[in-house]
C-alpha cells in the first residue's frame, strides 16, 4: 500500500460533513487585524476519510486483536457494554457547570465510585480528580508535602523509593521539589531492610512503594516496612499500578499505606485508547483527607454536592476528573461485586504463575519465587548467544502477539516483564508459551531471523536514530 497522509488525499472543494446555513442576519465583521487570512487544512470527503482511517486502524494491534501482556499495564479485555453506557446522553452530554440539581445522577455515580474505591483500597476518602496515574501520583506527593508542612515539619525534603520504581515516581517527586534516594532491593527482589533502616530518617517525607513491586513480587516484609517508616515520622505512599493482583483480596490500607493512587484504565477495565484517556483517583486515610485535590462529591441527605477539602492541595483540572472514564469503571465494579473482584486477582495471579513455571527452563528467572499478577524474566541467556530482548520482542510480533514490556524494570538485565491479566484463556497462554519456546530454539539454530524480526507486520523495524536526529514531526500546507 502506497503511503499517504491527509494532505495527499485532500482536494480543494471537498468536505467530510454537512453544516447548516446561517439562519440569522450576519453581523459586521471584526477589525481586519483580528481575522486570519489563510486557513490551510486538508479537504477530504466523508468517504475518503472513512476509508483512510479504516485502513489505518487495520495497521493497529489492540486487546481485541490478541494477547497484550505488557507488564504493569494490565491490558485486560474492555467490556463492550461499558462503551455503550458511557455514551448515554445523560452521561456524555452534560456540562460541568450546569445547575448542580440537574446532574444528580452523575454526582451519585461519582459519590458511589468514591466509596467503592475507598472500600477496595481500605482507605477513608477518595478524590476522583486526577486524570491519569501520574497526576494521581502528583496529588499524593503534594498531599504528603502539605501534611508535613502543616505539622510544622519543613525539613522533610527527601523521598525514598525502591530501585525498581517506575519513571513517573521519580519525575513526580522532582516536580514537587523533593530530593530522591533509591533504596536497593535484596537478592530476593524485596526491599533491603537494612538499607531502608539506615536511610529512613527525619529528612524523609515518604517512602513510595509499588505493591506488588514492578518485579511482580509481593514484599513479605511490608509490616516491618510500614512500622519503620511511620515510627520515624514518614508516610507510606502506594503506587496502585499493580492493584490487579490484590483486588478483592488485600487492602492497601491494611498494609499501612496512607495514600494510594489507582489507574482506572488498568485495573478497572476502561480502554487504553492508544495512550489515553485514563483516570488516576487517589485514596487516602483520614490523616490526609483534608488535603485531597478538589473537588470531592459529598452527600447531604438525598442531594449530592461538590465540596473542597479544607486544606486541599488545589484543583488538578478545570472540571472534576475524567467522568467518561469513571462511568466505565463504575459499571465494572457493579458487574463484579466483591466476589468477582477476588476472581479477577486470583485468575490474574494464576495466569502469571503458569507462564512463569512453563518458561523458567527457557528464560532466566532472576527471582525464583511465587510471583503475583506479573512475572519478570531476563533475556541474558539469549544475550550470551547474541540475541537481545529487543529481538525476542520483535519476533513475537511475527507470531501475532504483542510483546511484553522490555527493558523495565531497570534492575533486571535485558528485562522481559509479562502481565497476562485474568482475561486470557489457558489456550492463549499455551500458544504464547510455545512461541517463546520456539524463539529460544531460533536463538540457537537461526538467530538471524530474530535479529531481523519482525517480518510479518505492516511495517518492520524503523530507523529511530535518524528519526530523532532529523525530526520530522508534522506535514505543512500552504507555506511557500
Amino acid at each position, binding site marked *: 500500500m502506497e503511503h499517504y497522509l491527509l494532505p495527499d488525499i485532500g482536494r480543494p472543494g471537498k468536505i467530510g460533513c454537512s453544516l447548516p446555513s446561517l439562519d440569522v442576519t450576519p453581523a459586521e465583521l471584526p477589525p481586519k487585524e483580528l481575522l486570519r487570512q489563510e486557513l490551510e487544512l486538508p479537504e477530504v470527503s466523508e468517504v475518503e476519510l472513512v476509508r483512510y482511517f479504516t485502513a489505518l486502524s487495520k495497521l493497529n494491534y489492540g486487546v481485541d486483536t490478541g494477547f497484550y501482556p505488557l507488564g504493569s499495564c494490565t491490558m485486560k479485555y474492555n467490556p463492550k457494554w461499558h462503551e455503550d453506557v458511557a455514551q448515554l446522553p445523560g452521561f456524555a452530554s452534560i456540562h460541568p457547570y450546569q445547575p448542580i440539581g440537574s446532574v444528580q445522577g452523575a454526582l451519585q455515580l461519582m459519590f458511589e465510585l468514591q466509596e467503592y474505591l475507598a472500600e477496595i483500597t481500605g482507605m477513608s476518602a477518595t478524590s476522583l480528580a486526577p486524570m491519569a496515574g501520574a497526576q494521581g501520583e502528583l496529588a499524593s506527593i503534594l498531599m504528603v508535602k502539605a501534611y508535613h508542612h502543616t505539622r510544622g515539619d519543613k525539613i522533610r525534603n527527601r523521598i525514598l523509593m525502591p530501585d525498581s520504581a517506575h519513571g513517573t515516581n521519580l519525575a513526580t517527586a522532582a516536580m514537587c521539589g523533593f530530593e530522591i534516594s533509591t533504596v536497593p532491593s535484596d537478592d530476593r527482589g524485596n526491599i533491603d531492610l537494612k538499607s531502608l533502616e539506615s536511610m529512613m530518617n527525619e529528612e524523609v517525607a515518604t517512602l513510595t512503594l509499588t505493591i506488588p513491586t514492578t518485579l511482580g513480587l509481593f514484599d513479605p516484609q511490608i509490616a516491618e516496612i510500614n512500622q519503620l517508616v511511620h515510627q520515624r515520622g514518614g508516610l507510606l505512599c502506594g503506587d496502585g499500578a499493580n492493584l490487579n493482583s490484590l483486588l478483592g483480596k488485600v487492602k492497601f490500607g491494611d498494609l499501612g499505606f496512607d495514600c494510594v493512587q489507582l489507574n482506572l484504565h488498568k485495573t478497572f477495565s476502561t480502554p487504553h485508547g492508544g495512550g489515553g484517556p485514563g483516570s488516576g483517583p487517589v485514596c487516602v486515610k483520614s490523616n490526609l483527607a483534608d488535603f485531597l485535590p478538589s473537588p470531592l462529591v459529598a452527600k447531604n441527605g438525598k442531594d449530592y454536592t461538590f465540596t473542597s477539602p479544607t486544606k486541599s492541595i488545589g484543583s488538578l483540572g478545570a472540571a472534576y476528573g475524567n467522568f467518561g472514564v469513571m462511568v466505565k469503571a463504575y459499571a465494572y465494579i457493579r458487574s463484579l461485586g466483591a466476589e468477582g473482584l477476588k476472581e479477577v486477582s486470583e485468575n490474574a495471579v494464576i495466569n502469571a504463575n503458569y507462564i512463569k513455571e512453563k518458561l523458567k527452563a527457557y528464560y532466566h528467572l532472576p527471582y525464583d519465587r511465587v510471583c503475583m499478577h506479573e512475572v519478570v524474566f531476563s533475556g541474558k541467556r539469549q*544475550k*550470551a548467544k547474541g540475541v537481545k530482548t529487543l529481538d525476542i520482542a520483535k519476533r513475537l510480533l511475527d507470531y501475532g502477539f504483542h510483546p511484553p514490556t522490555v*527493558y523495565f524494570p531497570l534492575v533486571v*538485565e535485558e528485562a522481559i516483564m509479562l502481565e497476562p491479566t485474568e482475561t486470557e484463556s489457558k489456550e492463549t497462554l499455551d500458544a504464547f508459551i510455545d512461541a517463546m519456546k520456539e524463539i529460544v530454539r531460533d536463538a540457537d539454530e537461526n538467530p538471524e531471523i530474530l535479529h531481523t524480526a519482525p517480518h510479518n507486520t505492516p511495517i518492520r523495524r524503523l530507523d*529511530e*536514530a535518524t528519526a*530523532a*536526529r532529523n525530526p520530522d514531526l508534522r506535514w505543512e500546507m500552504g507555506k511557500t
Partner: protein
Amino acid sequence: MNPKEYKYTPEHEWICPEPGDKGRIGITDYAQSQLGDIVFLDLPAPGTQVEQSQKIGEIESVKAVSELFTPASGKVLEVNQLAIDEPQVVNEDPYRAGWLVRLELSKPSELDALMNSDEYDELEARLREESPE
C-alpha cells in the same frame, strides 16, 4: 584501540592534550557503544568556565541520556559543530572526528592524576567481561 596519548576518566571521557595548555574532550569507544545511536548533543557555550568533574553537557541516544563530565578545569574555547549537526560521527569516530569540546586548561597538572590508556584498557576489559555484548 584507546589512543595511547590520551588520558581517561572512570566516567568514560577522554582528554587529548594540545600545545599551549589546551585540551580536546570526547567520550570513549566503550561509552558510545553503551549509548547506542547518538541522536543529540547538549554542549556548553564557548566562554563557559568549567571545573574538573563538573557536568558540562548531555549526550542523548534513542533510548538513553548520559551526562558529560569534564576531565579538566578551564574555559570552553569551541565545540564540535560537525558532531552537533551529525551526532553519528561520535559513534563512528569517537576519538578524532567525534571530539566534543575544546578547552583552555586552567590547571594542566590535573591531567597527571587521570588514567592513562593502559589503565583505561583494563577498566574497559573488566566492564566488557561483566556484561558481554
